């Protein structure tokens, strides 16, 4: 059974640099301390982002993953996209074109919640096991 709470959606500030990034982290930090935090960062407003901003995103992702949660990006502005690519972190984040899509992705049924049917090869190996025993 899943125990995580609701998905948190937060808007990343337009100037996601130095001090702004620090303030953002102060706001988001406590939310990441919950069990299995599920966070969507909406990046459509981002016009400027520096290495401090990228560092903050990576730190948030790390905190979320440590607690078995995840952090996803949504509506990433071209400016933010260029910076993420420039600093080679674009592939680290799962990105979605809208926040709704990102939220929905959290609610997808996890693999371990699916009914476990016997694998297709079960019957074959089952028979082989019986043959082995017989021999």
């Amino acid at each position, binding site marked *: 059974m899943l125990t995580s709470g609701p998905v948190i959606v937060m808007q990343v500030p337009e100037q996601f640099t130095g001090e702004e990034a620090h303030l953002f982290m102060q706001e988001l930090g406590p939310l990441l301390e919950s069990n299995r935090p599920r966070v969507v960062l909406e990046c459509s407003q981002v016009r400027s982002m*520096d290495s401090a901003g990228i560092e903050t995103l990576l730190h948030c992702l790390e905190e979320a993953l440590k607690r078995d949660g995840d952090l996803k990006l949504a509506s990433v502005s*071209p400016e933010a996209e260029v910076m993420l690519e*420039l*600093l080679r972190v674009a592939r680290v984040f799962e990105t979605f074109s809208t926040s709704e899509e990102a939220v929905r992705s959290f609610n997808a049924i996890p693999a371990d919640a699916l009914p476990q049917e016997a694998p297709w090869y079960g019957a074959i190996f089952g028979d082989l096991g019986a043959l082995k025993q017989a021999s």
Partner: protein
Amino acid sequence: MPGAIVIAGVESQAEENEQLNSCGVSSRECRQSFLAGVELLGQSVFGRLIQHLSHFSFDTMAVFVDSSLAHEIDDLSGMQVDAADVWRGAARSLIEAKEAGIDAVLLAQAGAYVEFDPADLIRFHRDCGNIVTRACDDRGLLDLWVIDPGIVQENIDLKSSLQTAGRPYYQVHGYVNRVETLRDMRQLVADGLSSRCHLRPQGVEVRPGVWMAEGAQVERGARIVAPAFLGRDVKISEQCLITRCSSIERNCQIDYGTVVEDSSILSGTYVGIGLDLSHCIADGTCLVNLTREVALEIKDPVVMRLMRQNKPHGEGNRQLPSNFRHGEAVLSAAQER
């Protein structure tokens, strides 16, 4: 006995669109900047134009530069910097040519990169018996004329007179790049490195397709994959990869492990450690991504910075025009095409 005049001014060509239609050309935006002054593959388009014309036997050659552009040009020796109007300077020069008995003067306004034969253009002008002959290509008119100085009077409005010049136009069949947008600039670099035009990098071809200028250093473990150009005193650190028609202009440094792909790094730019530059033009603290059509100011000196004054004229160590930060101005023309 022909003469030549080259002018470098920030001009608009939009007003000429009516005439352009006669040559089957789509509309263009105003030329808002002097991209022809930006060093590409070791030399600016403006510098290449002067060099190209100087190889022909013109009796006189005058160069007029708008004072607002003077700081963007490396070597102003032999050029006249005109604060008022480069066109007026050109008109004065035409009158002097008339007095000296010169029968044809080639007038080129720096902007587009045009591969043409000046001798053939002047021959065409003489054969047609025109007063003014203007060059064009498949896309429209070019800022290249041959003028009979005999018609030039004192106080002539040369610019208007030339814009009203009609047919027949001289058809340029060689390579033309109008260098109106940053995308055009990148295209010119790619075409030069891929030998799609006669624009040659200023350096030695150390391997097929890899050009290096004097003083360029490549550290052990760095890879330069053709076609690529490294300008004068460029430093490429260990584990870097420079490829896909990238050009690293004079005095740049690309730091450890960075990949530069399909990009131009303009002179005096430091690019930090472990970065990925793709489809970009980088100039000091400014980065333009041509795929996403975004221009960014990088304020983090660890990522990108201007290394030092690389121009003798103090101001304007940045190569791209100041309006490019509002990227749209320079990018949109390409977008609309």
